[in-house]
């Protein structure tokens, strides 16, 4: 089975981003970038499926700026076999990304598409579900466990009330949650090897997809700052403050 893993280049999860003074966007100049953590979990799951003999080939794709090649190379160092980089002039919308991925799914015919459930920049949580709609496939979102059994995928999902298990016809779209696995670190020889793995460089036009975005960002502002708090010296003082100052306990 071939597995397609879309990955996204995002700000490193440890970075606390700042809003630009003109409120046009967040300031990403000189900020450390990395693979979206949920995408890394998707790559790891694909690699494990290949190690188990379930998957035969892992194709990783990234859409966005040319520098996203770094994230594709990282996925290759972790075990992906080849890559597709689609460069776009502007950051594409979720639906735009889903349409490009649909074109790749048509071309590559994967048995499974594994994606992160959400990117930690836009926090949209949309692309996998949109791709599932466009391909007509079943979707197993927020996966914490994935078992492939013949032409079915059994996926356990993290839902508000606890866990839910579904059986999906393959090919299917799976989006990863935090507990699916713990991604490995790339080894130095594998990082070197990744540099020589095949990478196709494309543009959106190559797939006949016109990117447009019907949702316009008017402004980006910092959130309301919390007023500085105080340090209390004891539990007794804390309870007193909560009762008599904050009045949240009676």
């Amino acid at each position: 089975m071939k597995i397609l893993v879309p990955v996204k280049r995002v700000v490193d999860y440890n970075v606390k981003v700042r809003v630009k003074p003109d409120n046009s966007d967040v300031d990403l100049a000189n900020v450390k970038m990395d693979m979206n953590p949920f995408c890394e979990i998707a790559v790891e799951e694909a690699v494990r499926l290949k190690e188990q003999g379930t998957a035969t080939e892992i194709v990783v794709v990234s859409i966005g700026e040319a520098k996203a090649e770094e994230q594709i190379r990282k996925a290759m160092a972790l075990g992906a076999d080849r890559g597709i980089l689609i460069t776009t002039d502007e950051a594409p919308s979720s639906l735009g990304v889903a349409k490009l991925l649909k074109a790749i799914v048509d071309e590559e015919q994967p048995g499974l598409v594994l994606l992160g459930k959400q990117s930690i920049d836009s926090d949209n949580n949309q692309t996998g579900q949109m791709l599932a709609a466009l391909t007509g496939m079943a979707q197993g979102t927020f996966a914490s466990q994935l078992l492939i059994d013949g032409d079915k995928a059994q996926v356990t999902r993290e839902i508000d009330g606890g866990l839910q298990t579904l059986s999906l016809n393959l090919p299917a779209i799976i989006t990863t949650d935090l507990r699916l696995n713990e991604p490995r670190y790339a080894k130095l020889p594998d990082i070197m090897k990744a540099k020589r793995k095949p990478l196709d460089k494309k543009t959106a036009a190559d797939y006949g997809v016109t990117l447009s975005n019907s949702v316009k960002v008017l402004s980006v502002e910092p959130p309301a700052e919390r007023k500085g708090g105080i340090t209390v010296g004891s539990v007794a003082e804390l309870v007193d403050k909560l009762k008599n100052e904050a009045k949240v306990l009676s």
Partner: protein
Amino acid sequence: MSILIIAEHDNASLAPVTSHVITAAAKIGGDIDVLVAGSGAQSVADEAAKLSGVSKVLLADDAAYGHQLAENLADLVAELGKSYSHILAPATTNGKNMMPRLAALLDVEQISDILSVESADTFKRPIYAGNAIATVQSSDSIKVITVRGTAFDACELNGSASVETVTGGHDKGISAFVGEDLAKSDRPELTAARIVVSGGRGMQNGDNFKLLYTLADKLDAAVGASRAAVDAGFVPNDMQVGQTGKIVAPELYIAVGISGQIQHLAGMKDSKVIVAINKDEDAPIFQVADYGLVADLFDALPEFEKAL
């Protein structure tokens, strides 16, 4: 304008978050209909009919909708939703699962997790774990939106909408429910509780969470956890508060043994009053806390409980 709201429910009762979405819809303006898609969900429809401001309740009662499978539900809503200007659902795991699929079927974008309605086409939403708030404007003919429940008040319950049955349940046949493992708790629901007590890695193990449960029961509070505590297996995933877990905004949030990574803060920093108890005085959680107590939680928790 006309708005369709997807009700959140478990086939037996309507989840309170639905009434918060009604308030968001009322700010957009126009007729409000509510869709209850479920199996044996008549009582949910009757409850939804009482939500103030609702014109009619559409009940799609079919086994295909019993477990809120996105494949079946999105097809139904794409069909029903064509005549509406807005389709809204709470940003619960059900809403997040189904709404993007619906949006793609309708060939429109989806707007996630709105915090405010600026006008019928303009909304505020958090990005970068809530470290920035974007104001976005949609030119789509149908606006597909998920709503952060804690950002809107609950609506009144003095409505008397009609309930209409929608026929034509359809199982797409590509996904099937196998089973579920749902948390059972007598405590208030995490996203709706007035007080939330949360534990982090500092709790050291699952057994020690008993200290939090005891305190929570005395305060009639819900119990949450940081990602670190869930990843370590102390408690199940449904307790996670944070960027990709649950978003809470209670009157009082008590963070115990939680360092306060930005991903956790994203899930709780809109709480009215925040208390942090941590033995590390440099923990970032103290930067957002109204009241910080630098102490060993194993001393402080029993003392706290006794002082109440």
